[in-house]
C-alpha cells in the first residue's frame, strides 16, 4: 500500500499550473467545473434581477441602473433591446453553462471514477480539454455582454430569421456571432466530456461493479452523456448552418424576407428547419439537465432516509425510458409552427408517454421516504424540494403536451412557469443537494448545516412565490419575452403580481448569498470532514479525504453488493458499504444477494 503511494509521488511532481490550472485529475476538474458554474450562475442571477426590476416596476426609473448599464439604461430605465439581451443571455447561461456544464460537469467528473472504483477518467487529457473548452466558451459568452451593439437577443432558442439578420435587432449583429462561436465551442466541450463519461462507465468499473450494482447517480450520468453525445452534434449542425446563412449568403433558414426597406435575395430556405434541429437537441437537453439531478437526489434520498431506494430496477428502467423517449418528443415545442397536424398528434402521443416514467420515479421517491429514518441534512432538504418541484412542473407538462391545449398556452407565461419549476428550479435544487452532500468529498471540509437550512427554506419558499403565479398570467394570455405589460389594458391587472414576483425573486436571490458565503468560507474555515460523514454505502467514501492521484492509495476496493443496503435487518449498523463482502454479513444476507452476485460471477 505504501509502495503505491510513493510510486505516485515520484512520478507526479506537480507544479501549481499542473495541479490547479491544467489539471488532469478528475476531482480537480470537477471543482473547476463547479466554481466556473457558480460564477456563471451568479451572472445569470444578476441578469434576472435586472430584468425583474423592469417587469416589477415598468414605470419607474432607477438611476443606479444607468450607472451600471450606461447607455442600455438611459434615464434609469432599461432599454427594450437590452432587456431582450438579458433574457437571452440569462437563459443561455442557466440552461447550458450552469445546469448542463456546471451540474453534470461537476458531478459526473467527481463521482464517475469515485463511485465505480476507477483511478481517473478514461482519458484525463480529453477531460482537461473539455473543461478548458467550457471555460473558453464561458468567457466568450460573458464577454458578449460587454460589446457595443449588445449581446445576442433573440431568446435562448435563437430562432432565425431574427437571429440571422443583423438588421432585425441590435443583438443579431456581433452579439449573435459571439453567441454562436461560444456555443460551438461549448458543444465541443460537452462532446469531449460525454465520450469520456461513457467510456469510463462502460470500461473502468472495479471488480464486482456490474451495471446493476451501480449507484443511480452513475446510471443517470451515463444516460445523460449518451443523450448529449447523440443530440449535441445536431445543435452543432444547426449552429453551423446558421453561421453560413449569416456570413456566407446561404439560404438554409431564409426565404422571402423584406426588411428595412430591402428585399433579401435569399430564397427556398425554411426557418422551421432550424427549429427542428434546435429542438432535436433542445428537448433531450432538458433531460440532460434533469437526469443528473434525479440521479443525485435518488442517491441522497436513499442515504438520508436510511432506506434502499425503492424499486431500483424500476428507477433504471424509467431513466432508460425517459432517455429513449426524449428523442422523439421534440415536436411538442413546435405544435403551432404550422407543421402537419398529424405529426402534431404523433408528438402529442410520445410526449404524454414520457410522463409515465416520470410518474414512476416520483412514486418511487415517495415510497423510499415511507417508513424511513430521515436525516435532514441540507442535501436531503434540497432533494425533497426537488421532488416537490418535479411533481409540480411535471404536471403542467401534461397540459402543454396536449396539442389542443398548447395552442392557447404556447409562448405564454404558463410555459415560463412550467420550465422554471421543472427544469430551472428542480435541477438547481439537485445541484445544491449535490454540493451539500459531496462537499466533504470535493473540499475535505464540511459546510455549515444551519446556514444550509436557512438557504433551503428561503429558496424553497421563494421559488414557489416566483413561479407559481406565472401559471395564471399564462392562462390570462400574457405572452412571454415581453419587455413590459403596460401596452395592453388586459395585462395591467398583473402589474401588482409582477411586483410581488420581482420582490420574491430579489429575496430569493439574496438567500443565495447565504449559500455563496457558506460555500467559499467552508473551503478555508469549514470543519474537517470525516471519512464518511453521511454513513453512505458508495465507494467514494472509502477513498481518503485528502485528494490523491489515483483516488485510492492501495488496491481499488472490490464491490460485493448493491449500493442501497441501508437499515438491513440483521445488521447492527444501518448501512453496509458496497465493498463489504457478503461473508462478513452473514446475519443480514438475503437469498437475492447471492443470486445476482454469484450468478454474474459464474458467467465470467
Amino acid at each position, binding site marked *: 500500500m505504501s509502495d503505491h503511494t510513493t510510486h505516485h509521488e515520484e512520478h507526479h511532481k506537480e507544479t501549481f499550473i499542473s495541479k490547479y490550472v491544467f489539471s488532469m485529475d478528475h476531482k480537480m476538474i470537477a471543482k473547476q467545473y463547479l466554481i466556473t458554474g457558480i460564477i456563471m450562475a451568479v451572472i445569470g442571477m444578476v441578469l434576472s434581477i435586472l430584468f425583474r426590476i423592469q417587469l416589477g416596476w415598468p414605470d419607474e426609473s432607477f438611476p443606479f441602473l444607468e450607472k451600471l448599464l450606461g447607455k442600455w439604461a438611459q434615464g434609469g430605465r432599461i432599454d427594450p433591446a437590452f432587456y431582450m439581451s438579458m433574457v437571452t443571455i440569462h437563459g443561455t447561461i442557466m440552461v447550458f453553462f450552469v445546469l448542463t456544464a456546471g451540474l453534470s460537469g461537476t458531478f459526473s467528473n467527481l463521482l464517475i471514477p469515485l463511485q465505480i472504483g476507477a483511478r481517473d477518467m478514461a482519458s484525463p487529457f480529453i477531460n482537461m480539454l473539455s473543461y478548458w473548452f467550457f471555460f473558453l466558451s464561458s468567457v466568450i459568452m460573458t464577454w458578449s455582454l460587454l460589446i457595443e451593439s449588445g449581446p445576442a437577443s433573440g431568446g435562448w432558442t435563437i430562432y432565425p430569421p431574427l437571429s440571422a439578420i443583423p438588421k432585425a435587432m441590435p443583438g443579431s449583429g456581433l452579439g449573435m456571432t459571439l453567441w454562436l462561436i461560444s456555443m460551438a465551442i461549448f458543444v465541443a466541450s460537452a462532446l469531449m466530456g460525454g465520450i469520456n463519461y461513457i467510456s469510463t462507465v462502460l470500461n473502468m468499473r472495479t471488480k464486482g461493479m456490474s451495471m446493476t450494482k451501480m449507484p443511480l447517480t452513475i446510471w443517470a450520468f451515463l444516460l445523460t452523456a449518451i443523450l448529449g453525445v447523440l443530440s449535441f452534434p445536431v445543435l452543432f449542425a444547426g449552429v453551423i448552418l446558421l453561421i453560413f446563412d449569416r456570413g456566407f449568403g446561404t439560404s438554409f433558414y431564409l426565404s422571402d424576407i423584406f426588411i428595412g426597406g430591402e428585399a433579401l435575395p435569399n430564397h427556398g430556405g425554411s426557418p422551421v428547419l432550424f427549429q427542428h434541429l434546435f429542438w432535436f437537441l433542445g428537448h433531450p437537453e432538458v433531460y440532460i439537465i434533469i437526469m443528473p439531478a434525479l440521479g443525485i437526489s435518488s442517491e441522497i434520498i436513499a442515504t438520508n432516509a436510511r*432506506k434502499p431506494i425503492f424499486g431500483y430496477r424500476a428507477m433504471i428502467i424509467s431513466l432508460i425510458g425517459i432517455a429513449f423517449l426524449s428523442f422523439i418528443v421534440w415536436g411538442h415545442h413546435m405544435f403551432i409552427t404550422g407543421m402537419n397536424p398529424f405529426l402534431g398528434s404523433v408528438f402529442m402521443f410520445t410526449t404524454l408517454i414520457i410522463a409515465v416514467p416520470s410518474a414512476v420515479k416520483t412514486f418511487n421517491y*415517495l415510497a423510499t421516504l415511507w*417508513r424511513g429514518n430521515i436525516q435532514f441534512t441540507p442535501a436531503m432538504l434540497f432533494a425533497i424540494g426537488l421532488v416537490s418541484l418535479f411533481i409540480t412542473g411535471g404536471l403542467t407538462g401534461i397540459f402543454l403536451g396536449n396539442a389542443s*391545449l398548447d395552442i*392557447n398556452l404556447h409562448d*405564454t407565461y404558463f410555459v415560463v412557469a412550467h420550465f422554471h419549476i421543472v427544469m430551472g428550479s428542480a435541477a438547481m435544487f439537485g445541484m445544491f443537494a449535490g454540493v451539500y452532500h459531496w462537499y466533504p468529498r470535493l473540499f475535505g471540509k464540511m459546510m455549515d448545516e444551519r446556514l444550509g437550512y436557512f438557504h433551503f427554506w*428561503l429558496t424553497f419558499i421563494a421559488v414557489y412565490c416566483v413561479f407559481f403565479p406565472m401559471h395564471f398570467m399564462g*392562462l390570462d394570455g400574457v405572452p412571454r419575452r415581453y419587455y413590459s405589460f403596460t401596452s395592453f389594458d388586459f395585462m395591467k391587472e398583473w402589474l401588482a403580481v409582477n411586483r410581488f414576483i420581482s420582490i420574491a425573486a430579489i429575496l430569493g436571490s439574496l438567500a443565495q448569498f447565504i449559500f455563496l458565503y457558506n460555500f467559499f468560507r467552508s473551503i478555508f474555515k469549514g470543519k474537517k470532514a470525516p471519512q464518511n460523514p453521511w454513513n453512505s454505502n458508495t465507494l467514494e467514501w472509502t477513498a481518503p479525504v485528502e485528494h490523491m492521484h489515483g483516488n485510492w492509495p492501495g488496491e481499488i476496493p472490490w464491490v460485493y453488493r448493491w449500493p442501497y443496503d441501508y437499515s438491513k435487518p440483521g445488521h447492527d449498523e444501518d448501512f453496509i458499504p458496497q465493498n463489504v463482502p457478503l461473508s462478513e454479513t452473514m446475519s443480514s444476507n438475503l437469498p437475492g444477494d447471492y443470486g445476482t452476485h454469484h450468478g454474474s460471477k459464474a458467467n465470467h
Partner: protein
Amino acid sequence: MNISIAQQLKSSTKAILLFVLLTISSTISFAQATMPAATDVASQELGITFWFYVLLLIAAVFAFAVINKTLKVLELTQELNGKKIKNTYNKVNGVFFIFFLVLFLGYVYYEFTTHGRMVLPESASEHGAITDNLFNITAIITGIVFIITHILLFYFSFKYKGKETRKAFFYSHNDKLELYWTIIPAIVLAVMVLSGWKAWTNITAPAPKEALTLDVTGKQFAWIVRYPGNDNALGSKAFKLVNDVNETGVDFNDKNAKDDLLVNEIYLPVNRPVKFNFNARDVIHSAYMPHFRAQMNCVPGMPTTFWFKPTITTEQMRLKTNDPKFDYLLLCAKVCGSAHYNMQIKIVVVNDTEYATWLTTKKPFYTEEMAKQIQEAAASVAKAKEEKLALNTHE
C-alpha cells in the same frame, strides 16, 4: 465547542444582515418615481405598494435575524444538556415540513381563488369551449395528483423524521405496486391523449367552405390585415412585388385583388367561421388571439393557416366580463425584436348587419393614386438592388 458555534453564528449573521441591509437601502435610495406622484393617482398607488413591499422586506430580514438568534439559543442549550443537535434539527425540519404543507396548500388555494379568477374569460370561439373543457378536466386530474403527492411527500418527511431510536424499514421493491403505478398513469394519460387528439384533429381540419378568409401578415411591429372585399376572394400575392407601399406584395393585376381592403381593426361576423392565412414579411411572429384560444406562427416564406368560429360578440363579452372597455385582440407571441411587447391589433366581433355596414365604410386599397405610388416604390427597390450589385462587382 459551544463558544465556537456562537462566534461563528455571530459573524455569519452579521455579514448577511449587513449585506441585506446595504442592498435594500441602496435600492430604496435609488428608486424614484419618474412622474410626480401627487399628480397621478396611479403612480401614487404604485408608490404606496412599493413602500409596502419595502416594509415587508425589512420585516423579512428581521424575521431572519430573530429565527437565527432563537436557533442559536436552542443550539446552545441543547449542547449544554448533552443532546445531539442533529436530532433536534431533524425534528425542527420535520415539523417545518408540516407547517410548509399547510402553508403551501393554503397558498395554492389562494392562488387558484385570486389569480385563478384573473384568467381569460370564457372562450369566444367554438373550439375554445371544447379545449377549455379539456383544460378543466386535465386540471382536476392533475390537481388531485398534485395534492395527494404533496401531502404524502411532506407528511412522510414529518412522520419519518430521523430519531436515534428508530430504524428504517428495509423495503427495496414491490413489483405489483410498481406495476400499478405505472399502468394507472398510463391509462389516465391515454384517455387524455385520445380526447386531446380528437380536439386537435377537429381544430386543425380544413376550414369550412363558407368561411370568411383573411390575409394576415406580421411585420416588425404591426399586423397587416387584408379583406377579400365584395367578391369574397383574396387577390394573389408574390414576394417579388413586396415594397414599402405594397407591403405584402399583392398582385394588383389579379382581378380579385382590385377590391381587397386593408384595415386597422379586424371585424368578424359572429357565428361565421373565419380562416386566417398567415404570413410574415421579415421574421417569425405568432398571431395569438387568446380570447379565441387561437394561435399560429407567421413564418416568412411559409404560409400557415388557422380557422375558428367566433361565438360571442364584443358587445356581449363586455356585458359578460362587466368591462365596458373590453376588446378582443390579436397580439404577437413569438419574440420578433425590440418592440415585440407591443404588436397588437384589435378584433371586433359583431352581428351580420353590423358587419355589412362596416364593410360598406371601407374603400378598396387599390386606387390610381396607389398604383402610381406602388410603381415608384417598386422602382426604388429595384434601384437599390442594382446599386448593391454594382457595389459588389466593384469590390
